[in-house]
């Protein structure tokens, strides 16, 4: 009993973790299922069919590739615009700072469905045809604030003297930015990029409103929840999960090694 009381936090924490991981385990297990009928919700028997033919479902891999492209472009767009804003906010004085700060904060403080609906109203009123471009516009819009926040945090912790030192040592504005500012701000920019990519790739609500007949991967999953869920969805979900974890672990190992060689 005393052991339990002492480790109450640990037990509670691990239970929460189990709650968070459980669906991923289910997704993984059910990627080996061979369901009867159209829905993959109850376990029937083990099968590797879906893994052997991941793109065997009509339109699924097309939607996946579309989502990846969309996320890539949205990341680039939000990163360029957001990094510029972040630098302006931290490094310069200008008028209307308060208004600009709220304009950046508001998209994060607004239910997604509100932004989704209002953007759709704009496109309908302007007579803009819904599709890839409208989705991209929307994704850049809602990723922007998150990128600004991530980059701003990093730039704020940067010593402005480093850039002064570079200018003092004969580096012009461009050289200073490329050789000193950018490399040092890189972790913040990378964090912003990762966040933007994940947000865009996984976005459903805003996309659902503004995609027209364009089908992203989340839209495909949504549709299949109504029409019937192919096992391949679980294969993709599992593969992405495993890939991401492997990448993080590999990154960790590399940084650990670097640290070791650096101190050796």
């Amino acid at each position, binding site marked *: 009993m005393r052991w339990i009381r002492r480790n109450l936090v640990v037990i509670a924490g691990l239970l929460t973790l189990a709650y968070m991981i459980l669906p991923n385990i289910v997704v993984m297990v059910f990627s080996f299922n061979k369901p009867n009928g159209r829905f993959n919700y109850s376990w029937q028997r083990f099968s590797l069919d879906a893994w052997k033919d991941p793109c065997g479902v009509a339109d699924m891999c097309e939607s996946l590739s579309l989502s990846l492209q969309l996320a890539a472009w949205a990341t680039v767009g939000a990163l360029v615009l957001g990094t510029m804003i972040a630098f302006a906010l931290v490094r310069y004085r200008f008028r209307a700072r308060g208004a600009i700060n709220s304009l950046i904060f*508001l998209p994060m403080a607004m239910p997604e*469905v509100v932004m989704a609906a209002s953007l759709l109203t704009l496109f309908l009123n302007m007579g803009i045809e819904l599709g890839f471009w409208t989705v991209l516009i929307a994704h850049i819009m809602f990723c922007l604030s998150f990128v600004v926040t991530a980059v701003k945090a990093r730039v704020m912790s940067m010593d402005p003297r480093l850039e002064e030192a570079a200018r003092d040592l004969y580096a012009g504005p461009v050289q200073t930015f490329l050789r000193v500012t950018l490399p040092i701000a890189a972790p913040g920019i990378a964090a912003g990029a990762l966040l933007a990519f994940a947000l865009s790739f996984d976005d459903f609500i805003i996309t659902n409103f503004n995609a027209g007949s364009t089908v992203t991967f989340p839209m495909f999953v949504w549709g299949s929840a109504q029409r019937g869920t192919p096992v391949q969805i679980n294969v993709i979900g599992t593969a992405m999960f495993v890939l991401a974890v492997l990448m*993080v672990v590999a990154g960790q190992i590399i940084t650990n090694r670097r640290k070791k060689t650096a101190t050796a």
Partner: protein
Amino acid sequence: MSTPTLTKEAPQPVEEPVLRKPSTRKRLVPYWLLLPGIIWLVVFFALPLVYQASTSIQTGSLEQGFQVTWHFQTYWDAFTEYWPQFVRSLLYAGTATLLCLLLGYPLAYLIAFKAGRWRNLLLVLVIAPFFTSFLIRTLAWKTILADDSVVVDVLNALHVLDVTSWLGWTEGERVLATPMAVVCGLTYNFLPFMILPLYTSLERIDGRLHEAAQDLYASPATTFRKVTFPLSMPGVVSGTLLTFIPASGDYVNAELLGSTDTKMVGNVIQSQFLRVLDYPTAAALSFILMAIVLVMVTVYIRKAGTEDLV
């Protein structure tokens, strides 16, 4: 070496000292940096809200087109017709936020203070689910909470479902398609948004503060109440906001895990906009939701007294 010279006051200036103004180009730099991004937000975030405001006071039909008629009645009609969905949205989102805090705090605490060399692994496990589309993961709850699933059987055997049914959270021996399933899905979906800010603010706390508190006769419980929790307030505030705001507008969980009796306001807006095509009503609903959330968030931030959220 020439001898150093000094005049304390500037010598009789030959001419008026010229005040050097920073060059115009330099002064404009921040505006050029801000311009593209701000234009983007104005055109695709602020302007749409204006369009939506105008749509909400239009009348007409899809065939004949909509005209601005300052028909504020739509707001009243929309609210009176859909107030149960509003109440439900706030109730579900509020419950899910509270659950996220209760579940997330121990885990964030564990990672920040007790994990030692497991810290990075645990952090990865918190973030990793993100990499599987949240729709796929939400669908997995359909399996987990299915009528014949292990989870439901256990809850049944423990008579938990008797209690929850009596409270109206579940129906008989079913969990799926009940309020509990929706709240469970919402909680699950937004837990990482609670844990990460909590972890960030907990991790910043100097471990010596705990020692100092205990040295000054505070029991572990008092230490938590008087030192740790107050210092983690920034994380609590941003975590609850990051959970409550998206949860209040969510319609995915209610659609996939709920029934017609668990529809939230997001579902209504979605169907009015995309299926019924009653744009004024949808726009009015969306504005009411926005207003409610903004008011609640503002009051909450004032009360919690934290301004530096982002």
